[in-house]
């Protein structure tokens, strides 16, 4: 998959054009097609012109810091929030023209669980299925199947109230599958879960993908995005900052490897000045507690730092760590390190 180059920190309208071409190339129809999607709340512009093309069967990720407009976008995709401007079609239907028809295709996992805690796990599935007009003759066996899928068979008659956080989350995901949706929208599906629960969820989502379900998910977890997503966009300030496969994004925006060096809290800045001038580093980032050096080979960078230290140009580093660049580096490079909210 190709991708366009862009400098960090600026919106890249061309990035999505590439995504569009890819979509058109692999399949005639997009599951989701958005052009210039906008959502304004009074003066606040939550989403400021987003283009998306999601092809059948792929797992598509929306990444971005808090308040980037991910959830607002997801709610527009789910047909539960009216867009301010732009074009949108889900399964070939404009949600504004026929919301019920769009939502009949979808499975939605909201950011916050909204189970009916007074009802049992099984009843939650049944009632949700009724919302799709499905008959009990289908829903009764289906609820058993879904409970097993969510590993909640022995909790079928437990009130949702009494389930643990991870169980609730699995139940919400199972609930979203009651109508066997072709398109599953997941808003931060694993936030707040322990590592075991996350891995179980990833496994379940992967199985859905194997079955041909199209997945769109938002997440804060870069490892999750790397694990699951075929393609993703990084969103910030309501705009798309970058788009592509995880590997391509790393290649393009970060580098192959990273060296993390700690010179001590007050000495990082000065050391960074020297390193920027004296080493073959692609990119250098100074954090309060450490300096990140992006390059093709971290061991070469480390040798250079050692040499400079021996020459007395920089203080000897307290610690030095080499690692591969990850999506997290891309994310931080693109969206900055300051807290958004």
């Amino acid at each position, binding site marked *: 998959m190709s991708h366009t180059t862009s400098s960090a920190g600026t919106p890249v309208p061309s990035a999505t054009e590439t995504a569009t071409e890819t979509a058109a190339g692999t399949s005639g129809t997009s599951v989701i097609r958005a052009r210039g999607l906008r959502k304004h*709340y*009074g003066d*606040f512009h*939550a989403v400021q012109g987003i283009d998306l093309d999601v092809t059948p069967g792929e797992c598509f990720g929306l990444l971005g810091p808090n308040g980037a407009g991910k*959830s*607002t976008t997801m*709610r527009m995709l*789910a047909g*539960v*929030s*009216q867009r301010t401007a732009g074009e949108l079609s889900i*399964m070939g239907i404009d949600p504004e023209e*026929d*919301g*019920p*028809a769009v*939502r*009949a*295709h*979808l499975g*939605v996992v*909201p*950011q*916050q*669980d*909204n*189970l*009916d*805690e*007074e*009802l049992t796990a099984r*009843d939650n599935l049944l*009632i*949700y299925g*009724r*919302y*799709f*007009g*499905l*008959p009990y*003759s*289908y829903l*009764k*066996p*289906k609820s*058993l*199947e879904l*409970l*097993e*899928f969510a590993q909640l*068979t022995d909790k079928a008659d437990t009130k949702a*109230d009494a389930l643990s956080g991870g169980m609730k989350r699995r139940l919400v995901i199972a*609930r*979203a*599958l009651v*109508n*066997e949706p*072709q398109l599953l929208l997941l808003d931060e599906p694993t936030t707040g879960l322990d590592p075991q629960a996350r891995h179980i969820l990833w496994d379940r989502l992967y199985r859905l993908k194997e*079955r041909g379900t199209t997945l769109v998910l938002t997440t804060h977890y870069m490892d999750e995005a790397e694990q699951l997503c075929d393609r993703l966009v990084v969103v910030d300030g309501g705009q798309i900052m970058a788009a592509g496969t995880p590997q391509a994004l790393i290649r393009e925006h970060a580098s192959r490897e990273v060296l993390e060096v700690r010179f001590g809290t007050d000495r990082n800045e000065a050391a960074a000045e020297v390193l920027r001038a004296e080493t073959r580093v692609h990119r250098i980032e100074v954090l309060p507690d450490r300096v990140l050096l992006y390059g093709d080979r971290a061991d070469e960078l480390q040798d250079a730092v050692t040499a400079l230290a021996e020459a007395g140009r920089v203080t000897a580093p307290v610690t030095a760590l080499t690692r591969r660049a990850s999506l997290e580096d891309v994310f931080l490079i693109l969206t900055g390190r300051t807290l958004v909210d």
Partner: protein
Amino acid sequence: MAETFPTTAASSGGRPASSSARQDAAGTAQGGAPGTSTASGPLQPPFGPAESARRVRRRGLWYFAEHQLRSMRRYGSVLVVNAVGEPLVYLLAMGLGLATLISGGASAEVLGGATYLQFIAPALLASSALMTASVEFSYPVMDGFKWHRIYYAPQATPISPAQITAGHLTAVSLRFLAQSTVFYLIMTAFGATDSPWSWLQVFSATLGGLAIGSWIMAFAASIRDEKGQFALLQRFVVMPLFLFSATFYPLTQLPLSLQWIGWISPQWHAAQLGRVLSYGMDNPAWLTAVHVLYLMGLAASGALVAVAIYTRRLGWRSGRPDPDAVVTRTKGPRGSVLSRRAERASSAPAASASSAAEAAGEATTAAGEAAGPGGVAVVGTPGTAAVPPMPEITVRTGALSGMYSGNIRAVLERAFLSLKSNNWAVFVSGFAEPVLYLLSLGIGLGSLIGELPGPDGEPIPYGMYIAPALLAVSAMNGAVYDSTWNVFFKLRYAKTYQTMLATRLGPLDVALGEILMALFRGAVYAASFLIVMALMGLVTSWTALLMVPGALLVAFGFAAVGMAVTSYMKTFQHMDWIMIVMLPMFLFSATFFPLQVYPTGVQWFIQALPLWHAVEMMRHLAVGVVTWATAGHILYFVVMAAAGLVFASRRLARLFLR
């Protein structure tokens, strides 16, 4: 379709053995199966998204109503007890007990020839729908949008916001119908109906419930942050509509300056309609038509406004972001639990319906506080200036050192902070309820009843007769509410006590702090009520001032016992019993009519109950007749308070330090 549901889930393939066959059958039957179900694939729906959308477009509101009804079924036993118990005790107390005071020539004319039972029964039927409406359309709506966000689940499905609104209205209407039918059957058993059309009032009451309910629903949907609005709604809208709408006496008994409340009140229109249907009350045809049209108009317009608000709030044409739809979940109370509290409380409308409403307000704040970095400790957060050295934390030793740290003040500080961050208007308005009762019954019924014998046998006006009783009831309700619902809620849901007990505070600090707070509240209400009584000319002796400490003693007694009883409560279902005891006690303890209307055996039973002693004690103090009987009543409460406190202290360790 074959009805062979697999009872257990099959192997790790994840798919019941019979599902393939049933899916094929279903698919053929429905003719629209889209799925390409393979042998190992998941069970496919019997029809595709297009058919799903078509069905929901046609019947969506029923699918949502089904959900609501299923939720109601979870606490069905409470609903049944309410539906049967409420008409029983009201008809017994008002229709039979109070009626003995209102028989006679002049009153027969005022009532248009009907018996008092005939007159009051249709109005009580209508008011039960009104009360249910104020419960079902307030907290559950808030729950749908905010606490549990129940509405956001169907929002993601083909169901439209309008269908969610209509579905909720439909489900509650069905409850109105069921409840009104039970009420109708009971009042017929009492012999209160004598028209072949009387059964139609089941529908007139439902219409009345919808007329007010749809507007309450619209109001509730427009609230984003519950800060006691429901308590205020209950006190200043629902209560007056109930009390000034010719429920207990014809509207003409009120001065013209108060009659207008009846004219605009759906309760009046529904009650009058019920009377026409129930016993053929003389009513001009045009006026009957006005009743029907007014109720239908209110119900329809309220429903339209509600649909518009729901639609906006559930995503369409929204002017600003709905915080509940985007941000992380507000850690609110279990809305449905609260709705059930309000539910039960509504069966004792004297003072507790809105107390429960108020509890919910406080609950929200309490939960908010709990979510914060840590309750009381935050109060003195130091700035960036130099932090003085921390003073040594002393720990009290001596008697009860395991239970009591001598720091009740901290508990009270929290309570006052919570009061401040709540809507304080809600607190202050708490005294409105007994005042409204006094105004309505004192003026309206007073003109029908005239005078009753006072404590010393001298006749006194009806208003003077009930005022001290209402004060006693108000003291009881406040104390019971504070020591049961409030304690139970903070213990089980807001976890306020867990936080407190993680510090050096002991359980006795917490208990005494809470009781003192309840007494403070009681003192404020009692003093305000006394002022109102004085303004209405109902105070004739200086000893009336003693009613304030009297109210505190009553409150202390009920609070201590209430706390001890609460320590046994494990679920909200157990809390039902408190309301089941409270409502009859409120209605039968010589509150609205003298004990002499009962047979001797019943009189003895009532004289054993605490509220009767409270009512009598207040009555004595109000008119300045202080006798050995007065001392006996006081002694009853002294003993009750002392025994309750000992009992409560013993239970506290178990309650708090489980």
